[in-house]
């Protein structure tokens, strides 16, 4: 229980610190918000009025507190680019990004951990998995995106080339399949390498030999003794991976023209829409911290040695 509290408090502190950094960094960015909101033909007087209306003439700290207070209630202010509330712009996009990341996570789980398990159980598969994971880990997300489009959307038209569909759920999934694979590929290779090292390390331990000596079948030995212990570092790495997917989704969405919060972040940066940039940055950071914290807690649940304070 104390461990749990410590993780939660640590996560909250990180979120608070990073929210301050995000705000401090971006409220100092070029292009004063009031000037942008006022438009091209604004007089100094109207700029001043607008600055006052949105509280932009307040001192820095009070603006921060105001912004953070709003953010907690899901109010991120007005988009400088579209003149509507940031929240209304983000709401439809978050779902798409969430679906993309979930899909990529499932692919990583199946491909990454699956190939690691296969390579440990059947040593003949070891070499192909080593070569495959070594190769795919070097393929950046956007490169994977283009190559997948060239192969599976242009050469053989199995999948749509670009864009999202607003239609049925199966149609949306179909549109997100290639992007999810592009996003998952190098991370799946990374997970495969780490999981394999972990499982292999576990498979050579004495208790596994003992289990074999007791006459358990190979699959029983693997499931009960190798996989259970080997899974502990895999969970940590998987948490890190999901966090990396959150950042990687920005690139994939841009590559495939998917209208999620990642591509919206890039668009907002290009348009100097600081309110949107701050909101998305904060959301991504929160996702990041929460995922890491959950991975910490699962790690703690899985490993009784950590729980009882014996350490490793």
């Amino acid at each position, binding site marked *: 229980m104390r461990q749990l509290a410590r993780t939660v408090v640590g996560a909250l502190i990180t979120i608070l610190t990073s929210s301050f950094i995000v705000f401090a960094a971006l409220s100092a960015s070029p292009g004063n918000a009031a000037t942008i909101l006022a438009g091209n033909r604004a007089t100094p007087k109207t700029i001043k009025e607008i600055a006052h209306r949105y509280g932009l003439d307040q001192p820095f700290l009070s603006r921060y507190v105001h912004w953070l207070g709003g953010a907690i209630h899901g109010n991120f202010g007005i988009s400088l680019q579209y003149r509507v509330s940031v929240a209304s712009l983000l709401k439809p996009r978050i779902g798409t990004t969430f679906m993309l990341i979930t899909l990529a996570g499932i692919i990583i789980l199946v491909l990454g951990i699956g190939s690691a398990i296969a390579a440990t159980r059947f040593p003949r598969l070891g070499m192909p998995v080593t070569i495959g994971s070594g190769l795919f880990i070097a393929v950046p997300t956007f*490169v994977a995106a283009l190559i997948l489009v060239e192969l599976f959307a242009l050469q053989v038209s199995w999948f749509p080339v670009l864009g999202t569909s607003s239609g049925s759920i199966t149609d949306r999934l179909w549109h997100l399949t290639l992007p999810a694979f592009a996003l998952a590929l190098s991370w799946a290779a990374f997970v495969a390498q780490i999981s394999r090292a972990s499982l292999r390390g576990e498979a050579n331990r004495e208790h596994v030999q003992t289990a074999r000596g007791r006459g358990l079948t190979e699959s029983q030995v693997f499931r009960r003794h190798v996989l259970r212990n080997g899974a502990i570092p895999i969970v940590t790495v998987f948490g890190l991976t999901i966090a990396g997917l959150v950042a990687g989704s920005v690139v994939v969405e*841009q590559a495939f023209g998917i209208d999620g919060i990642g591509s919206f972040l890039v668009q907002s940066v290009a348009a100097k829409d600081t309110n949107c940039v701050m909101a998305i940055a904060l959301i991504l950071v929160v996702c990041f911290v929460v995922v890491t914290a959950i991975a910490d807690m699962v790690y703690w649940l899985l490993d009784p040695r950590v729980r009882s304070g014996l350490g490793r």
Partner: protein
Amino acid sequence: MSVVEELVLEPPTFVQRARRGEPLVYVLSGILVLIVLCALFAPLLAPFPPNHGNILAANLGPSGAHWLGTDQLGRDILSRLLYGARLSLLGPTMIIVFATTFAVALAISSVWIGGWFDQAVARLLDTLFAFPGLLLAILAVAMIGPGLLAPVIALTLAYTPYIARVVRTVALRERHLAYVESCQVVGLSGWQICFRHLIPNVSPIVLAQATIAFGSALVDLAAISYLGLGVQPPQAEWGLMVSDGQSALLNGSPWESLSACVMIIVVVLSVNILGERIALRNERAA
């Protein structure tokens, strides 16, 4: 006399090492050296100026005149690839040089001073480690504006903890070995011990970590250019070429995007394998 001479141990020569089963390392190093040479001598090697284009000869396939074809503005892709190597390699090199310097300075000083300073540095590194470099770089661009400067600063920040954590662990072990104490007894100052003994002793680990980090830095930086937030057109850079060629790829001429993709993969793959080999050798030596 001659017998004694033969017994003197000499470090293995280049050829001996290559025979001993490290040919892959030499092939990969050769590829990387070749690419660096291409970048350095791009003006001599490139058949055309990188920004010289003929719009009437756009999106051509490979031919005798244009070995890799032309892009959507009719510029020679091979020439742009060669010139592109300059910015594509310069950025990650800067990031890794800066990040390694900071990381070693932070790690060694925190290990040497110890106490609360060490705790504070460890905490700082953990916090920085929590941020993905790509996100940091995008925020830096939002703050400073597009170009090479903002992502290089942000990625330097992102890669410092990546290297510093490992260096700190190794330096901590090294710090408590007997030779450090004997140096102190002899009367060497802290600076002398750190610079003459501690840093040289952790340098193989630093090299391995920095090499692997170079690959990820190149990928992150190319991704930023790909997003249109880094190096701006008409400059030649591989990430930018991938995105420039994307519309041509969708219209059936994939040469620009795919050749830039291949260059990125070749460099990252070579660097990754080299880094792993160096790390493996360190492990065996330890």
